[in-house]
């Protein structure tokens, strides 16, 4: 029971992380990965792709109770593969094509035969994001102030 729950938690965590990465994948990354897949299953739309709004919430004082900060555009799609898996894609912005691809890859991730190629896409996106984050962090670090104390003159 416990072991089953742990592996369940683990697969949820993997899928969540995969969806996080798919939400950030570029259209180029997604379409290239799709083109590379052999034996593509048929993809049927279940919902969308469609664009709407999510109300982004903040926390009072940064860590307190929630308040509504403002909305953001979000595009989402749900698809069903001919092999049976249902996938969800959702991301900031109005790009419905990316949302549809994200849903397809979320579905493919649940299919043993395609899992490895989806993981390869995840890794590719993760590597790009890490490099971008790293670069930004280095740019910011270069603007850090190094204080030094002036020696006061005697009299």
């Amino acid at each position, binding site marked *: 029971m416990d072991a089953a729950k742990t592996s369940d938690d683990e697969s949820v965590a993997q899928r969540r992380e995969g969806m996080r990465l798919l939400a950030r994948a570029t259209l180029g990354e997604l379409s290239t990965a799709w083109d590379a897949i052999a034996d593509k299953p048929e993809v049927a739309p279940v919902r969308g792709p469609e664009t709407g709004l*999510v109300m982004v919430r903040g926390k009072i004082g940064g860590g307190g109770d*929630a308040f509504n900060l403002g909305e953001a555009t979000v595009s989402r799609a749900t698809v069903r593969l001919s092999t049976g898996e249902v996938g969800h894609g959702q991301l900031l912005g109005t790009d419905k094509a990316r949302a549809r691809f994200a849903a397809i890859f979320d579905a493919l991730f649940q299919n043993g035969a395609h899992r490895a190629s989806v993981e390869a896409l995840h890794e590719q996106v993760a590597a790009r994001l890490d490099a971008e984050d790293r670069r930004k962090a280095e740019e910011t670090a270069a603007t850090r102030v190094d204080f030094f104390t002036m020696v006061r003159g005697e009299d």
Partner: protein
Amino acid sequence: MYVAVKGGETAIANAHRLLADRRRGDRSLPAITIEQVVEQLGLAVDRVMAEASLYDRALAALAVRQARGDMIEAIFILRAYRTTLPRFGYSEPVDTARMKVERRVSATYKDLPGGQLLGPTFDYTHRLLDPSLIGEEAVDEPTLKEPGEPVMRVSDILDGEGLIEGDGQMPEGHVAGDLTREPMEFPMARDLRLQALARGDEGFLLALAYSTQRGYGRTHPFVGEVRIGEVEVELELPELGFAVSLGAIRVTECQMVNQFKGSAKQPPQFTRGYGLVFGQSERKAMSMSLVDRALRTDEFDEDIVAPAEDQEFVISHADNVQATGFVEHLKLPHYVDFQAELDLVRRMRREHDAARAGGKDGMKEAAE
């Protein structure tokens, strides 16, 4: 009384055609692209997103271009656009402690974990016009350095001594209100006030914040910290039963720390004002935090003595789309209203003149 009149269709069509022409400007110059607005006028885009209360850089840039750079017009257009979209849900509250910080400065601590990170700031520039920007001179790549330790929250440092109030808590069971769903009512809870301030007009909030500094409701403020950077937006998916990340948005957060001498209910301590704004907008986040603190009079047994402390005054007038709608509607035809007023003034004038004439002849007409 409203009377329907027709006419003006051709004039309106031609006016809009002329607007499109003026918007395009000199055809021998290349048209500005949305990508150029996003990349090179990014802070204008950020202001439009913040005050339209809709985070979408490309759409905000389109609005800026469509409005010929008129910010409030752009905000109006984007605010109107958001009403055409369905609402998918409410995000998990964003966690600014986990922000990927691009700038963070504190005015209260010189040496603090994470340090003073200036980021891409106008501070310390000389505000001299730069002729090199007239042309297309090459721009240097930024300097890179090994990142240091994680950036710690200033409020957590003060919290360790117990000398500062905690993050804001609403009463038990309180559900965050949403201005886009419910009409405004006063008194208004802090969560709703923050939503209104977050989309309030930057100039209005700046002026109110300034008024508190000049003595109209003193709050003894220090910038505990200002930070700018990206935070993840997560949405719970009911189909799956867990929250997934939709991507990241850039926000500016200000923690204002205010001296407080204590009241019957509370010991002397620091109190706080909070600002959180879409995009990079330090002026707005700082103004918001000052006004947030000024509006918390009821929590600290303070008298309302200044405009910035009067929540009905502040919140009712902070929205520039509402404000511009009501002010600018005055230029629309009021022909009938004015005719009525003109009639009235003419009659009053006749009576006034008659009364004066009557005054000379005796008092008999004054009795009328």
